[in-house]
């Protein structure tokens, strides 16, 4: 009885307070296209604050040099040719290692998706080997393959292989089964089903996996170069550290961020071009 009266009173209050329905939310919608400028502005503001703090003497330049000092260092490194030597060494290793790891991972992932035997053999192997920090096998690879480029390229390929296998076979698994049934009911040969249904259907997932594997290869190469390399961004950062050159340390990190950003942009362009149908 009490509840009834309470409810009635609430109803009355509400109808008196407002006649129109208030907006109650749209389900946390994120508008990817809107307010693009905000992200650039945030970075600019951050760097400006950093520069200002450095200029006012709030930050000890021995620990964190100003953005201008970092730019200057990058410029000097570019002039001497060292920037290009280190970048190209790292990029070469990443491109070769990533390509090999991705190609092998794709092939094995497709086999795992299609064959029960390969899957039963592969799943526990992948589960066991994937979580190993790949840098831990570098000394072993150096022992086997010598000190040249080969162990570094191999360790990247090794690190890229596993996430690629996983993203490939899970993406193929997620291709709707009825599309395959459709093709079978029209007598489409297996080869065409794999090439024209499974692979294009799995491609968005595979490219998403590439974002992760390119990130891995950057992490792995820097660590590998810190352990054993004459050239490369990793060894450059290592050397700068032992010489207490904080400006070069920051410059190296900035360089890595630029490389990461560039890879991300390239993948985004590919996604926009390939997946217009989505």
């Amino acid at each position, binding site marked *: 009885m009490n509840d009834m009266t309470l409810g009635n009173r609430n109803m009355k209050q509400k109808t008196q307070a407002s006649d129109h329905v208030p907006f109650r939310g749209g389900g946390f919608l994120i508008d990817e296209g809107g307010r693009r400028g905000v992200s650039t502005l945030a970075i600019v503001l951050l760097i400006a604050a950093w520069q200002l703090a450095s200029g006012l003497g709030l930050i000890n330049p021995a620990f964190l040099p100003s953005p201008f000092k970092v730019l200057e260092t990058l410029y000097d490194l570019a002039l001497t040719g060292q920037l290009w030597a280190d970048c190209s060494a790292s990029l070469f290793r990443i491109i070769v290692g990533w390509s090999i790891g991705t190609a092998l991972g794709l092939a094995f992932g497709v086999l795992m998706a299609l064959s029960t035997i390969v899957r039963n053999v592969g799943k526990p192997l992948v589960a066991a080997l994937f979580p190993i920090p790949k840098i831990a096998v570098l000394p072993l690879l150096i022992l086997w393959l010598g000190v040249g480029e080969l162990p570094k390229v191999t360790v990247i390929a090794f690190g890229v292989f596993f996430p690629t296998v996983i993203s490939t076979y899970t993406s193929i698994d997620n291709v*709707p089964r*009825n*599309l395959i*049934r*459709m*093709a*079978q*009911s*029209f*007598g*489409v*040969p297996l080869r*065409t089903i794999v090439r*024209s*249904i499974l692979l*294009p*259907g799995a491609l968005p997932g595979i490219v998403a996996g590439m974002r992760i594997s390119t990130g891995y290869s950057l992490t792995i190469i820097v660590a590998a170069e810190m352990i054993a390399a004459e050239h490369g961004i990793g060894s450059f950062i290592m050397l700068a550290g032992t010489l207490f050159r904080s400006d070069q340390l920051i410059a190296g990190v900035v360089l890595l961020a630029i490389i990461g950003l560039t890879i991300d942009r390239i993948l985004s362009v590919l996604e926009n071009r390939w*997946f*217009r*149908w*989505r």
Partner: protein
Amino acid sequence: MLMQIDIAEHRYGSLLVLDNVQFSIASGEIVCVVGPSGCGKSTLLSILGGLVQPTNGSVSYSGQSQTDCLNDLTYVFQDFALLPWLTVRENIRFVLRHHALDPATCDRKIDDVLARTGLTSFAQAFPKQLSGGMKQRVGIARALVVRPQVLLMDEPFSALDAQTRELLTADFLDLWLREKITAVHITHNLAEALTLADRIIVLSRRPGRIKKIVEVTVPKAQRLTAEGQTELVALREELWSLIKDEAVLANQEVTA
């Protein structure tokens, strides 16, 4: 006789799904299969097209040699099964690719079928740009392009809204009046079955048995006219009385 279906039984594991289902399909005939959900309608159609092997029984087929038929038994799917990354035109071409046809013949066949299904101006659209009704038109066009002997239609209109369903049913009737397609049409919609079928096979709840085969004698050209509709009312009553009890019982089974 074009197809002879003789399924003694079909099981999924120990579960009996179809029990003693026997019927035949004549050339140019539309056979509709109705029954409560879970009665094995879709399984039956999968068996007819060779996508599922019956546990005990066989389906025989005696297609006359029709030279331009590329795929005797061809499905139209409930969920359309279109490749989202291909345009309408490419989706239809997809089922022709593995037949060694010269490109000109291919294009001619595709143009022809697009025109017959009213899709010509949508040829370059991607599936996501189409409404459900248009998507199923593409599904039908893709099935017709291979000139099948029998169309196997698995609830082709049930993913569509009621109005689109009526329009597509009428269109399909039109197509039949022009081309006398042979089709097995699975549906749970009695109006659809009564519009299209020469014979309606009523299945019981699981395990699916043939409860009755109802002949629809009203000529197809008159089905959508007022007189035709009046004639069909009695038949509709009969069908519904056959299905209602089964549907109620099937419903209780699922909830229990």
